C-alpha cells in the first residue's frame, strides 16, 4: 500500500471538491434561473466531461497549461515553472473533469425549491440574492452534500486526466489509480489488490452517504 499516493489523492480530491462548491454554486445558480435562450449550450459544455474520454479532456488541458498557451505563459511568468506535470496543474484538470458532478446536483436541487417560496420571500422584501442565501441554499442541503461527495469520489478515481496532465511523479502527481496501474505493470498483484480494495471501499462509502441522504423519508438526515 502506497500511503504517499493515497494521501496525495485524498488531498487532491478534498481541494477539488471544496473548490467546486465555490465554483459550482454560481454556475448552478445561473443555469437554474437564467432565461437566456442559448443557455442549453452552456449546459452541454458543463456536461461534456461526463461523456468525453478523459484522455481527450486531459490532452486539451495539457495544451492549455503548456508554455505555448497564454495561460501557461502567464503562470510561468508568475511562478517561474510550468503548470503541466505539477500538483496545481492536476487540480485545474480535475476541476474541469469533476465539474458536472458538482454542478448538476446543485442545479437540480436549486430547481426543486418551490417557486412560490421564492415569490413569498420577494414579497417579504428580500432580493433574489438574499432569497438564494436564506431559502434556496438551506433547502438544497442534500444537493450540496451530493455534489460535494460525487465530485470527491470522482476525483479520487480519475486516471486518464491525471496521466495526461500530471504524469507520474511520486509525491507530486502520482495518485492511487496510477499507483495501482504501476503495480500491475510490475506484476505486484497483492499490493495492487490492497490499494484497489481501499479505493473500492471509500467509493462505496461515499456513494452510500449520497444515496442515504437522498432517501425520501429523511430529506436532511435521519437524526432530525
Amino acid at each position, binding site marked *: 500500500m502506497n500511503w504517499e499516493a493515497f494521501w496525495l489523492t485524498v488531498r487532491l480530491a478534498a481541494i477539488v471538491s471544496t473548490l467546486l462548491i465555490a465554483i459550482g454554486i454560481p454556475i448552478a445558480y445561473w443555469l437554474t434561473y437564467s432565461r437566456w435562450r442559448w443557455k442549453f449550450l452552456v449546459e452541454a459544455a458543463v456536461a461534456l466531461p461526463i461523456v468525453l474520454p478523459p484522455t481527450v479532456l486531459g490532452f486539451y488541458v495539457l495544451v492549455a497549461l503548456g508554455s505555448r498557451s497564454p495561460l501557461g505563459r502567464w503562470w510561468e511568468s508568475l511562478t517561474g515553472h510550468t503548470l503541466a506535470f505539477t500538483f496545481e496543474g492536476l487540480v485545474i484538470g480535475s476541476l474541469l473533469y469533476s465539474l458536472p458532478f458538482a454542478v448538476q446536483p446543485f442545479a437540480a436541487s436549486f430547481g426543486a425549491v*418551490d417557486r412560490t417560496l421564492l*415569490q413569498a*420571500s420577494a*414579497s*417579504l*422584501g428580500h*432580493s433574489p440574492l438574499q432569497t438564494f442565501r*436564506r431559502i434556496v441554499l438551506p433547502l438544497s442541503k442534500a444537493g450540496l452534500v451530493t455534489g460535494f461527495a460525487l465530485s470527491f469520489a470522482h476525483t479520487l478515481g480519475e486516471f486518464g486526466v491525471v496521466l495526461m496532465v500530471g504524469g507520474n511523479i511520486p509525491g507530486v502527481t502520482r495518485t492511487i489509480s496510477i499507483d495501482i496501474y504501476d503495480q500491475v505493470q510490475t506484476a505486484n498483484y497483492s499490493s495492487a489488490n490492497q490499494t484497489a480494495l481501499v479505493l473500492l471501499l471509500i467509493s462505496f462509502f461515499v456513494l452510500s452517504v449520497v444515496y442515504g441522504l437522498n432517501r425520501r423519508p429523511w430529506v436532511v438526515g435521519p437524526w432530525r
Partner: protein
Amino acid sequence: MGGGAMAVKIAPALQTSAQPISADLEVRIRKRFPNPEGSFNLNVHFRALAGFTILFGASGAGKTTLLDCIAGLSDPDDGRIAVGGEDLYDSEKKQNVAAWKRRIGYVHQDLALFPHLTAGENVAYGLRTLSAAERQTRSREMLGLFRIDHLRDRRPAQISGGERQRVALARALVTEPRALLLDEPLAALDRLTKSSLVGDLRKWNQHHRVPILFVTHNGEEVFALGDEVIVLDAGRIVAQGQPHEVMRAPRLETVANLSGFENIFDATVLALHEGRGTMTCRLGSGAVEVETPLVRAEVGSHLRVGVRAGDLLLATEHPRGLSARNVLPGTIRRLEQRDVIVSAMVDCDGTEFEVHLTLAARDALQLGPGKSVWVVVKTHSCHLMGM
C-alpha cells in the same frame, strides 16, 4: 352559519370610519393570460380603498393573475399600478418596481411557509432591516395578536392547517405592507376557524388602514367580509359595488351562478322561535315576512337570506295542507324563457322573487304577466348568509 351576527356588528363600523386618501390602490392593466379554455385578456380598471375589497369570480377568471401583477411577480402587458399615489408599474413611463421593493403583502393560496424555518422565524423573516431585538419584539407582538405565540418554535409541518394560515397572515402583516393581497386564504378552513381568523384580520385592519384585496369564489365570504366587491369574469370586471347591491340587483348570470342564489334579500330578524328551531324575518324594506331556520342572532339584527329560484313553488290558488310555512301572495311581472327553464319574476308586496319553472308548468297553469299567484317558500330553502 351561527356566527352571522358577528359580521353584521363589525361591518357598519368599518364603513363609516375615515379612509386616508393616500392608502388606496389603483390598478389599470391589461394582460393576456393562459387558461384551461385557451387564453383570456385580463383587462381591469379599479380603485381599492382601505378596507376589504373582495375579488369574486370563478376559477380561471383571472383573479390570481391580477394579484401576481400587483405583487410584481408577473408583468402586465401595459397599464399602471399605483399604491398610495406611488407608481409600482407604469408602461408609459417604463417603470416597473421589483417585487421585493414593492412592500405589498401577499398570502399565496398554498401559503408558501418556509419549511426549514420555525413559525417564529417565518414571521420574523420579513423584518430583515430591523435590529435583532426589534425583530424579536415585533414578531412576538404579531404572534400574540394571531394567538400563535405558543407555536413559535414549531416548523410548518408540525402545526395544523388553521395554524399555518395564521402564521402566513402574521408573516405578511408584520412587515406593515402598503396593501395586502389574500388569495383564498380561508379556502381550506372550517367555519369556526374562518370566522375567528377574519375577526383577527379585522382587528389588525382597524389600526393599519390599508387596502386588502381578498380573492374568493365563495359567495358567503363575500357577505361576511366585503366593504366592496369586484366581480371578475373571463378577465373583465362585470360588476362592482357593495356586496348586497352587486350580488342582488344586477341579475348577472355569473353572480347568481357563483353565489348559487338567484334571490338574495336583506332581512331583519323579527322574532326567535327557539322551541321550533325557526325565526321570523322581514325581507327587505317591504312587508313580506318569512320563517327561516334559527341562527344565533338577536331580534332586530340584520342578516341576508339567499333562496334558489329552483327551490320556490308557484300556485294559482291559495294552497292548503302544505308543510311549507311561507305562502306569499304576489303578481307575476315578467316571464323569460332560457332554454328549458322559465324564469318568473313575482312581485310580493314590493319584494321581487325569481322563480324557475318548467315549460310544462307554465303552460298547465297558464302563467303570464299580471296573473295573481302564491309563492311557496320552504323554511329550509332560506339560506342565511354570513359566517
